[in-house]
């Protein structure tokens, strides 16, 4: 699935992985998170291999809501992250406000709309107080309004100093969010550059084709 990829993510503007379906975006993110073990090569975080995912958090394309209220989902994440119980209520309020879900804390998480669930998933990931946030096509199944709400939150997260690494197959979304862009195709890294450079003067034929809206096969 992934072939000879060497990547280093530095703290800073969001890195957006783009590429067609099956290019390896999700696999790369899942491998980075430790959800998939690489058959070769190694992954280090701060120079440490097999470091526990304490400062990493992951949001899936279709996040699974635990069978609790929205606030209960956040409380669970805070408890797992080792946040003292005395701080839970205050932190839950902050997180719900940050993702625009204030007032919905008592609602069962599974009864929220798709966009609200995705925002709750972002809040749940932030409950882990991550330095790196990995997002796998977080707006892929959302309508434009919900997409905008999620993108606004992602920008706010990135502005707060958290490193965002996200995948998308939507070039428009990459333009709106990316500080740098990584193009993957058939499991290989095709091109990596700052967003302005990549979008303005791509160097590889694949990147030019992708930007031109042609199908990469």
């Amino acid at each position, binding site marked *: 699935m992934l072939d000879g990829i060497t990547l280093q993510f530095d703290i800073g503007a969001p890195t957006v992985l783009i590429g067609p379906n099956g290019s390896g975006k999700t696999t790369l993110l899942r491998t980075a998170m430790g959800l998939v073990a690489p058959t070769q090569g190694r992954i280090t975080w701060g120079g440490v291999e097999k470091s*526990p995912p304490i400062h990493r958090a992951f949001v899936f394309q279709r996040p699974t809501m635990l069978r609790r*209220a929205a606030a209960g989902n956040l409380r669970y994440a805070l408890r797992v992250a080792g946040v003292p119980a005395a701080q839970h209520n205050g932190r839950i309020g902050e997180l719900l406000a940050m993702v625009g879900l204030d007032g919905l804390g008592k609602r*069962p998480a599974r009864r929220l709309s798709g966009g609200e669930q995705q925002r709750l998933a972002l809040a749940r990931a932030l409950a882990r107080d991550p330095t790196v946030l990995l997002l796998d096509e977080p707006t892929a199944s959302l309508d434009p309004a919900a997409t905008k709400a999620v993108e606004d939150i992602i920008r706010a997260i990135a502005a707060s100093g958290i490193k965002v690494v996200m995948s998308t197959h939507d070039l428009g979304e990459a333009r709106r969010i990316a500080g740098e862009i990584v193009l993957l195709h058939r499991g290989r890294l095709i091109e990596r550059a700052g967003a302005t450079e990549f979008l303005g003067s791509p160097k590889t034929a694949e990147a030019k084709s992708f930007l031109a809206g042609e199908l990469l096969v």
Partner: protein
Amino acid sequence: MHQDASALQLILSGDPALFAIVRLSLIISLSAVAISTFIGIPFGAFIALNRFRGREGVIVLLNALMGLPPVVVGLAVYLMLSRSGPLGALGILFTPTAMIIAQTILVTPIIAALARQTIEDLWAEYRDELTAMNVGPFARVVTLIWDGRFSLVVTLLAGFGRAAAEVGAIIIVGGNINGFTRTMTTAIALETSKGDLPLAMGLGTVLIGIVIIVNALAWLARRAGEKIAG
């Protein structure tokens, strides 16, 4: 119980013997379900979350044990608890304790097998999220049992249904002693053999009524819980 009274008369008059039978039946069945829950759910969770050699065989065996013949279990427990048996010194044959043991053996595979399936299905759904959150093995089990609690209620009801309806095992190890080990099912068997079919039918109606009430209460609790937790 008055032999010539109908079941309805016995119920309406608050017949103490009848209510003692009902009470003992509930104590035995609910005790067996409670013990089986503490054994079966953790065991089911262990199989659901772990991959080990022979796992498929254990699952097939567990599923097969759901159909354990009660009379065979009764006979096995009888042999264990009889004076010459390995546990004969305990002196608990023909007591409610022996009946609880027999029913626990019958109910545990049902709860373990159904819990295994419920927890395994939920684990398939939760695996990525819990792994990404770095949830430890013990916390995973607790989370899955808690989040699967509404489905697990049905599992417990299946176990209770088996226990409440069971007669073959408890009549062997309990002896159907009047006022001591007589339950609704053993009383029904006795009254039927004596030819008092109206009383047997009446007792059967009471038994079905209790099972329906227990299931209705569990259903209401499940509905209320789902409304809150989703």
